[in-house]
């Protein structure tokens, strides 16, 4: 651990920094929204400005930038303009830097700069291709504590797309399943699944039409199972729509599956094993708003006489099941009638 112990010794009294003249922050008499800096921050940044001025790049500068970053992880000059440049200039061992980054990312999970620096380090020639697999494991661990952290997921998506290596992609669907098993309403995990299956995760050779259709059906089947476990899950319904729309399949493909979710759960419903159309589980809260909306879209797509049925469903959403969106449902009714 290189974290300074409390109370910190100011740089101004450290003998090893005696050769440096601190540079105070320039601010005129009438500052706007001035921050009441702590002595520790003022002192550390006085020395940061001094080394930036002299251009010193040394091990002690790495310690100094680390100190400033711990006090203010959003200090982009300490990160990008100085720590990164010093790491490069010194050919600093990247595994040492990454060990520190592991700790800092954990601490300052929501700071842009933490992730940006991490990416820059991974892009350095010395980082090695083998590092990527290790990085995936690290990200997976980070997502155990904060399952929806935007930066963490974004980093994983960048890493996969950047390396675009079959070996890295190979475990992604299993990883998504692990995340969805923990929380099947985790939209970040659903999004990642889409990213893997239909976007960057599409592997060479998979453009083959038969294989694509097979994969789509697998996905539709997968999402149906999840909906049957927890029907009121907007993420799963969005994903189902996404799969169908992306592949230009009509929504009516899944109408048979959707219908039982649009009505109250029948009394004495038995567990039926139907892999194609898994029914709602016992105790499911029905009718499900997303299912009603989906079915209305199926009817709207059919047009003609079916439009009337769509309108009835939208009315029930606006008047009873989804009143917060009443205006939206009224708009849909108006639009369908004007066609």
């Amino acid at each position, binding site marked *: 651990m290189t974290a300074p112990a409390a109370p910190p010794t100011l740089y101004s009294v450290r003998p090893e920094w005696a050769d440096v003249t601190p540079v105070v*922050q*320039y*601010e005129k008499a*009438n*500052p*706007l*929204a*001035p*921050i*009441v*800096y*702590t002595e520790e*921050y003022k002192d550390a940044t006085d020395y*940061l*400005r001094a080394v*930036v*001025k002299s251009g010193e790049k040394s091990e002690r500068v790495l310690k100094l930038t680390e100190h400033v970053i711990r*006090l*203010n*992880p*959003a*200090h*982009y*000059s300490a990160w*990008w303009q100085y720590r990164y440049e010093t790491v490069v200039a010194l050919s600093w061992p990247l595994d040492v830097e990454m060990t520190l980054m592991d700790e800092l990312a954990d601490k300052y999970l929501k*700071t842009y*700069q933490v992730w*940006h620096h991490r990416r820059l380090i991974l892009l350095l020639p010395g980082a090695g291709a083998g590092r990527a697999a290790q990085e995936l494991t690290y990200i997976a661990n980070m997502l155990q504590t904060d399952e*929806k952290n*935007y930066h963490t*997921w*974004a980093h994983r*998506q*960048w890493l996969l*797309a950047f390396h675009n290596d079959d070996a890295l992609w190979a475990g992604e669907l299993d990883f998504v399943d692990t995340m969805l098993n923990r929380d099947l*309403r*985790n*939209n*970040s995990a659903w*999004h*990642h699944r*889409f990213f893997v299956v*239909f*976007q*960057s995760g599409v592997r060479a050779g998979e453009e083959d039409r038969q294989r694509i259709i097979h994969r789509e059906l697998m996905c539709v089947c997968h999402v149906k199972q999840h909906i049957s476990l927890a029907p009121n*899950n*907007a*993420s799963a319904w*969005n*994903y189902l*729509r*996404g799969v169908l*729309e*992306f592949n230009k399949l009509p929504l009516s493909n899944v109408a048979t599956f959707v219908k039982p979710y649009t009505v109250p759960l029948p009394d004495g419903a038995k567990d039926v094993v139907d892999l194609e159309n898994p029914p709602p589980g016992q105790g499911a809260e029905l009718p499900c708003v997303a299912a009603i909306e989906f079915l209305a879209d199926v009817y709207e797509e059919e047009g003609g006489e079916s439009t009337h049925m769509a309108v009835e469903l939208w009315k029930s959403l606006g008047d009873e099941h989804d009143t*917060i*969106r*009443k*205006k*939206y449902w009224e*708009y849909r009714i108006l639009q369908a009638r004007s066609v």
Partner: protein
Amino acid sequence: MDDPLPPLFRDAHILHAKQALARLPGCLVEVDASRMLIIFYCVGIFDLLGVLEQQTNEMDRKSWQNWIWEQHTVGEYGTGFKPGPFMSRTLSHWDQESPHLIMTYGALMSLAILRDDFSRLNRAGLQHFVGSCQNHNGSFSSMPNGGGESDLRNLYCAFCICALLGDWSSIDVERAIAFVALCRTYEGGYGQLPGCEAQGGTTYLAIAALHLAPPGPRPRLTPADRARSEHWLVHNQDASGGFRGRTGKAPDTCYCFWGGAALQILGAQDKIDAYAFTQFIAGSQFPFGGISKAAGQLPDPYHTYLSLAAASLYTPRLPSSVKGYGWEFAPFDPLLNAREETVRWARSFIPAQRGRQMV
């Protein structure tokens, strides 16, 4: 059936902005490198409440303008604004500190709110700077030559600056638009970068950027894309009236702005429940000043400004049966995120070709 709205605590919110402009506590040190934005939110709070002239005197406003101009910096790759003097050694307009794209947007808008005449603006330098922040893939970085993060926040700010200058010649618009398209997701929103999950803030930035851009060879959004975006945005309104930023997350006043303004840009402002929307914001007010992300949380200038901006957009749409004390605002421009009058000032004084009319 509609209950009256709780009053808007105008005086308390004014105090919140005043206190932040006077001093920020040491625990907020993380804003050291984005101070300009805090200033934009604070002077913006005065502007949205229509009290700038009443609450500040000419001397204050001149002094604030001067402070902002002290952050106007000329570098190797052009001219712009830095977030504050956190790395400054002297008052030098030519130093190693690069301007920052997001802070430059914040500074220009703050100066417009303060009715600066922009006579000190180096326009050619500003264009050079914005151009040098664009990356090969069409995206923008915060600083020239790929410095700092690159994501939709920077692209939106670059577009705002070009729109204010009335000159897009320093950037490759079509390439930037292609980058925006890559950020779109199956849900109908946009992620921060290609491959990322749809998020309310970045969706606003993308949709606003597409509408700020000059017309291109094709429509910026197909009717189907619009309908899908509208669908996702409308579904982000929670039963409480507040907006969430992502599917399945909790509502937050800042997403009331990002989602509400995106819908307004799309012309879909009448498709949400404006009353519940305003109730959520009203309920997130801190009685002693400022607005929080949700009831029971601590307020800050960011959530306060965006909540007032969101209210500016939607309170005119409230049913006449709803009476609320203090919820009256001047017209607001959802594309540039400021009062219409401020945007008119900016568009009149910032362009290089000064066809200045009296505002």
